[in-house]
């Protein structure tokens, strides 16, 4: 099908490849990276979701771990993640200068009150991946064995898949991405939602999936961190590094932000 206004449909950006995969002991790991969605698919998605998708929506991208012998799988994709975003506007955030803006506005335009299609425009999601009903994850106390992951085992497969990103009209950033590394005996997947709403707050919600190939053990850990922007900024102000640069790097930020929610689950695949 030709695209709507004659623009080429399959404009693969340089560096974007179609899906790649690797198989280890019954586990198949697949990632797919394509350009952002075009107007038609975005409209479809808007209708299905009931909210406007983020500005950069990589709706064709995914990261997937499948275990054919047991029929188990976990999938990370933008649609399912966005489907968990609050669509009512009940948990809506406000940009930093909103109060000032509103006060000035109310005097002049009392008739313009209606907030258009309220929803959580920060696209905050507690997405932990899309998985099957059975075999299902059960709560556990077994943590992800960090020591095993710190070993410099060769990385046989690595990918970093963007699922969505929004610039929040230049008020910060919201982004959901998925990193994956496969070593000879195990793999780690990290799906991270990162929100920096300038002068308001910082949110990091991580889902880690750990697979030990030999035992078929899969551990899923969800960690939500959240703190006010100003509190984090003050914490970092003491360091010698550029505070603003630190504030843009979720890897560096995470340790400075308290955990507000955590869960641990496990499933053993046979």
């Amino acid at each position, binding site marked *: 099908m030709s695209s*709507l206004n*004659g*623009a080429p449909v399959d404009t693969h950006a340089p*560096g974007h490849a179609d899906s790649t995969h690797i198989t280890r002991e019954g586990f198949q790991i697949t990632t797919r990276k394509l*350009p952002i969605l*075009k*107007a038609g698919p975005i409209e479809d998605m808007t209708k299905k979701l009931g909210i406007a998708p983020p500005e950069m929506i990589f709706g064709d991208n995914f990261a997937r771990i499948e275990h054919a012998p047991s029929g188990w799988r976990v999938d990370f994709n933008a649609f399912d993640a966005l489907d968990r975003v609050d669509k009512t506007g009940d948990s809506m955030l406000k940009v930093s200068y909103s109060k000032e803006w509103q006060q000035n506005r109310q005097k002049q335009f009392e008739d313009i009150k209606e907030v258009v299609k309220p929803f959580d425009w920060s696209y905050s999601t507690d997405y932990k991946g899309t998985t099957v009903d059975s075999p299902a994850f059960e709560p556990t106390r077994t943590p992800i064995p960090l020591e095993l*992951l710190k070993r410099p085992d060769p990385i046989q497969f690595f990918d970093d898949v963007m699922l969505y990103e929004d610039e929040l009209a230049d008020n910060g950033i919201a982004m959901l991405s998925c990193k994956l*590394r496969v070593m000879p005996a195990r793999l780690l997947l990290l799906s991270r939602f990162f929100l920096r709403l300038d002068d308001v707050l910082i949110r990091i919600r991580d889902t880690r999936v750990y697979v030990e190939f030999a035992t078929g053990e899969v551990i899923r850990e969800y960690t939500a961190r959240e703190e006010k922007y100003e509190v984090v900024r003050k914490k970092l102000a003491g360091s010698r590094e550029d505070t603003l640069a630190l504030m843009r790097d979720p890897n560096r930020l995470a340790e400075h932000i308290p955990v507000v929610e955590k869960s641990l689950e496990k499933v053993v695949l046979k």
Partner: protein
Amino acid sequence: MSIGGSDLDRAITQLRACRPIPENQVRELCHKARELLIEEGNVVGVDAPVTICGDIHGQFHDLMELFRVGGDVPDTNYLFMGDFVDRGFYSLESFLLLLCLKVRYPDRITLIRGNHESRQITTVYGFYDECLRKYGSANVWRHCCEVFDYLALGALVTGAATTLEPSEGPIAENINIDNLPDSDAEIEIETLNANGEIMYRYARNSDSQSTSAASQANSNPASSSPIAPTPSRTGAAGTGATSSANGSNKNDTGAILCVHGGLSPLIDSIDKIRLLDRKQEVPHEGAMCDLLWSDPDEIEGWGLSPRGAGFLFGADIVKCFNHKNDLSLIARAHQLVMEGFKEMFDSTIVTVWSAPNYCYRCGNVAAILELGEDGSNAGFVRRSNGERGGGGGGWVLGSNVGPEGNPTAENRRLSSVLGDSMQRARDGPGRRYRVFEAAPQDSRGMPAKKPAADYFL
């Protein structure tokens, strides 16, 4: 030292090679630019033909690709709708080159302000850091910010033709020639790829529309209107040509307002834009802020953005504004659109986006919008030979009666202001979109980005 004449040409050569110019030259350039820009009104008058461009965001190599596709300055008359800086790796080179061209060819390039041309935004989104990295101090950033404060807020294009002279370019692959309008049809819209090959063509007069738009409209059999290259009324992509203004003079198109973001509830006439005091940092609220920040949306009237700041405006607002100000079209930028351009509200407003593969990862195409010159052959002869296009007409309007003295002016008034038909008052200008992709990776002197494996935890 002074930067003028040959110095300026040297600076242009150096910047075209993506090499920054020395700090003292930047200072001089910015000084010259301010002197020039201070003379411009808040709304710059621009004569068609003109090529209208959207966000660039420091994607220098893609800006070079834009010039390759659209023709070079001064052969092509350009209008850039802001957001030259931030996000991309070469904000400095991109902005300084545009500024050099502005100083060198002031009548051939118009720059208006985007929301990123601001101190506050550039400290967060890259331009400040880039200046610091490339010069070791913030001086260059400061010089540039002073120029930002002098950039116009909008532009008003007059003298645009309602119909395009069809391009002579070959038909792009996979395009069925039978779906293109007859050769004698009046072309309202044409989309060309980066090689100048015709991808899409749309005729204005209604009897040829059924066939002309067939390749696109057929996908939308439910629509009774010939508008319809877009599959639904939300009109997410591309063109939304209208057959409404039947009977109006062929060369009778209103002016085209170009602004980075959109309209403001404080602004109901272009004269009100002219009255603003623009020489300041972009404020957080008020008319100037709205012009640089607001977005059209599928709503009625005005709405508040769910973010708690910023306005959204619907089709009725645009149609009213265009009618009141005798506009046929508003061209704006500000929002990423995957197809490079997006017409909305019966083609009364268009978003033009000129940063392909935005942020080096979105994979979107970019577009520029060419408006032809009224009274000549639409002015878009390919300029590869260096000759100015537009035939002998040059800058003087042809024999056609200008917009002011047109005897049919009364006919253009809507009898009932935006009644049920909500038709546009005027034929829109003929619009040629050139769509292009990101410059090849090897031209930017950096390796294709492959994620580096790391031992993340």
